[in-house]
């Protein structure tokens, strides 16, 4: 199943922030079908795109060794609809990070207009919880990151490119 709700990373600094864009297209079935006659990207999928950026921001902090899942939506405020032709610019910032989870805060903008404000909490699954083993098949996450231009922009705090980690 395709589940890519970010088109491209535009900026990524390890442990700090991740920026990315999502283009809304009438070609996407969900945009057309969610609200017939009023095409829009469902707000939940805006949240999912931000969760993908945030989840990768948190996971990379732990070299993708932890099984990171979205655990809680602390805040989700939408100021406008995301309509076909809009380009959403997501900015996600790491707020807190623990051995057991992390929180991020994010905005979505359309041009100079604030579109949405989101706060998320991620938790790490303990071994044996819900499912055994990794959450991604071998190479799947790396492929997703490559498709999203992650390695083109991702740097560590010193500005050096982040490596392709062994466990990807």
């Amino acid at each position, binding site marked *: 199943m395709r589940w890519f709700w970010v088109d491209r990373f535009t900026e990524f600094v390890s442990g700090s922030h991740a920026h990315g864009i999502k283009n809304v297209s009438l070609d996407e079935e969900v945009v057309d079908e969610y609200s017939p006659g009023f095409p829009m990207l469902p707000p939940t999928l805006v949240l999912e795109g931000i969760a993908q950026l945030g989840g990768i921001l948190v996971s990379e902090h732990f070299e993708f060794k932890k099984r990171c899942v979205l655990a809680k939506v602390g805040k989700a405020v939408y100021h406008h609809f995301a309509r076909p032709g809009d380009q959403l610019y997501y900015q996600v910032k790491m707020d807190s990070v623990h051995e057991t989870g992390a929180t991020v805060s994010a905005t979505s903008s359309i041009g100079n207009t604030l579109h949405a404000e989101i706060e998320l*909490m991620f938790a790490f699954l303990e071994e044996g919880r819900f499912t055994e083993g990794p959450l991604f098949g071998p190479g799947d996450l790396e492929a997703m990151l490559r498709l999203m231009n992650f390695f083109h922009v991702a740097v560590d705090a010193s500005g050096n490119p982040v490596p392709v980690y062994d466990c990807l």
Partner: protein
Amino acid sequence: MALSQDEIFAKVQEALIDALGVDDDEVTTDATLVGDLGAESIDFLDIVFKLEKAFDITIPREELSPEDVLTNTQYVQDGKVTAEGLVELKTRMPWADLSEFEKNPRVENFGNLLTVGDLCNYVEAKLGA
């Protein structure tokens, strides 16, 4: 300047309203986090994040949730925390009122032990440390 007890309570209350979606009048000193305010296990992580931010403190996992004691056969027998285990819990959590728990110290009762007042005491102890 040190925060007063009222100021600590106000910040704890705000964190719990935010994390649990409860009303301010529900967050009283003697309200239990699980039974009265409906906190689930994932909410405790959220509460920890919010308290850390509100008070600029670090909360190690084992301080609020002594799971290692409750799963240790040295301290638990037949599902009950032993006298030795209770001593360990009191040492670990001097800020918590364990008097109710002591009456029937079954491990499953521990989850509904913590009150808003306990959290305030914990924060006060951390700030004073």
